[in-house]
C-alpha cells in the first residue's frame, strides 16, 4: 500500500482524476463552496435591493439584471467548460472528465433557462414585450437547445462508456458550431429588422459594478458546489460495487 502511494506522487495532478481520490476531496470542498455561495448570494441580494440606487431610466425593474447577467454569463462559460472537459475526456481518457462535463451541462441548461426567464421579466416593463427576436435572445435560446440535445443524448444511451463518447463528440461539434450560430444569428438580426433594441452603453456606477461582481462570484461558487455534488452522486452510482466506496460511505455516517 505504501509503495503504491509513493508511486502515485510524480503524477500528482492526475491523482484526483481517479474517482477514488476525487470522491473524498470533493466531499471536503463542497461545504466551503456552498457556504461561500450562500454568503455571497445573501450579500449580493442585500446590495441589489437596499444599496444600489434605482436606474434613472428603468427605475427599479433593472434590479433583476443582478440575476440575469451572471446567469447569462455562466450559461455561455459553462458550455465552453463542458466542451473542454469533453475534450479532456478524449485526450486523457479519464471517466471523471466525462462526469464533470455531464454534471456541468445540467447546471448550464438551468442557467440558460434562468437567463431567458429573467430576461423576459425584464423585457416586459422595459421594452413592453416578453420576447423579441433579438440576436442575443435568439442565440441564448439556441444555446438552451444545444444543452437539451446534449443532455437528452446522454440520457438516451444506457452504456456509460458509449454515452460519454457520444455526448463528448456532440459537445465538441457543438462548440465548433457555437460561434457560427452566434454570428449567423447576429447577421440575420441586422438584416431583418432595423428596429432592434440596443442597450445604451452608459458607464456603470461603482456600487452597481461591485454588486454585479458579487453575484457573479456567488454563481461561480454555486456552480462549483453543485457540480461537485452531482459528480459525487455519479461516482456513487457507477462505483457502487467497489469496496472503497462502501468504506467511504461508512466513514460518512
Amino acid at each position, binding site marked *: 500500500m505504501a509503495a503504491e502511494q509513493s508511486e502515485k506522487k510524480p503524477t500528482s495532478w492526475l491523482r484526483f482524476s481517479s474517482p477514488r481520490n476525487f470522491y473524498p476531496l470533493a466531499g471536503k470542498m463542497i461545504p466551503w463552496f456552498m457556504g461561500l455561495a450562500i454568503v455571497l448570494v445573501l450579500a449580493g441580494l442585500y446590495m441589489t435591493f437596499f444599496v444600489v440606487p434605482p436606474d434613472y431610466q428603468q427605475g427599479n425593474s433593472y434590479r433583476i439584471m443582478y440575476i440575469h447577467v451572471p446567469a447569462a454569463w455562466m450559461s455561455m462559460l459553462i458550455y465552453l467548460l463542458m466542451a473542454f472537459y469533453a475534450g479532456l475526456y478524449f485526450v486523457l481518457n479519464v471517466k471523471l472528465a466525462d462526469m464533470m462535463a455531464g454534471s456541468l451541462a445540467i447546471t448550464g441548461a438551468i442557467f440558460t433557462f434562468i437567463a431567458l426567464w429573467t430576461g423576459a421579466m425584464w423585457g416586459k416593463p422595459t421594452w413592453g414585450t416578453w420576447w423579441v427576436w433579438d440576436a442575443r435572445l435568439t442565440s441564448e435560446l*439556441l444555446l438552451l437547445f444545444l444543452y*437539451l*440535445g446534449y443532455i437528452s443524448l446522454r440520457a*438516451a444511451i444506457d452504456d456509460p462508456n*458509449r454515452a460519454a463518447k457520444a455526448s463528448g*463528440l456532440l459537445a465538441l461539434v457543438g462548440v465548433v458550431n457555437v460561434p*457560427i450560430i452566434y454570428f449567423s444569428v447576429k447577421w440575420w438580426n441586422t438584416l431583418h429588422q432595423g428596429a432592434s433594441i440596443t442597450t445604451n452603453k452608459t458607464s456603470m456606477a461603482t456600487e452597481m459594478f461591485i454588486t454585479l461582481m458579487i453575484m457573479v462570484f456567488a454563481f461561480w461558487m454555486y456552480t462549483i458546489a453543485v457540480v461537485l455534488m452531482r459528480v459525487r452522486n455519479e461516482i456513487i452510482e457507477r462505483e457502487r460495487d467497489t469496496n472503497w466506496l462502501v468504506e467511504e460511505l461508512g466513514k460518512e455516517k
Partner: protein
Amino acid sequence: MFSVINLMVRRDILLAMRRPQDVMTSLFFFIIVVSLFPLGVSPEMEILRTIGPGVIWVAALLATMLSLGRLFSADHQDGTLEQMILSPQPLALMVLSKCVAHWLLTGIPLVILTPLLGLLLGLAGDEIQTLTLTLLLGTPVLILIGSIGAALTLGVRGGGVLLSLLILPLFVPVLIFGTGAVSSMNAGMGVEAHFSLLGAFLVLSLLLTPWASAAALKISME
C-alpha cells in the same frame, strides 16, 4: 479513392431504386408540409409570397432531417456497417460517399420540386431562381451535418426525435442564409454574400463532418 466513392454511391443508389418508396415518402412530406401553410396561415397571395421562401426552406429542412434516420440504419441492421468499419478503406470516405448518394436521392429531388412549390406560394421568377440555388447549396450541408447526428443516434432508443433535437440547432446558420438570400435580393442588396457563405458552409462541412461522423459511427458500433 474515387473508385471507392463511385462504388459506394452506385451501391446506395441501386439499393434505393429497389425500394423507391423510402425516397418518395420524404418528398411527399415536403410537398404536404408546404401545402399546409396556405391552409394554416392564409390563402392571401401577398402573405404567402412573404413567408414562401422561409416555408419552403423549413419544409426542406424537416424533410431532410426525417430522411436522415435512414442514412445508416439499413446498413446497421444487416451488418454491412460493421464490414465497412473493418474494411481497409477510410471510414470517413465511405461516410462521405453515403452522404453524396443520400443527397442525390433526397436532396436533388427537393431542389427540383422547389420551383413548383414556389409557384404555389406565388413567388416571382427571380425569387424562385435564388431560392432553388440556395437549396442546391444548402441541402448537402444539411445532410453532412445531419450525418453526425444520425451516426450518434444509431440504435439508440427514441433515435428519431433525439436526432432532431441534436441537429436542428446546428441547421440554423444554413437556414438563415438560405432564406436570407431571397429577402436580401428583394431588398436590392444582392445575393453574393449569402451564396458565398453557403458555399463556405459546404466546403467546411465537406472537410470536417465525414471525420466526425466516422468517429461517431465507431462509437456507436463499439
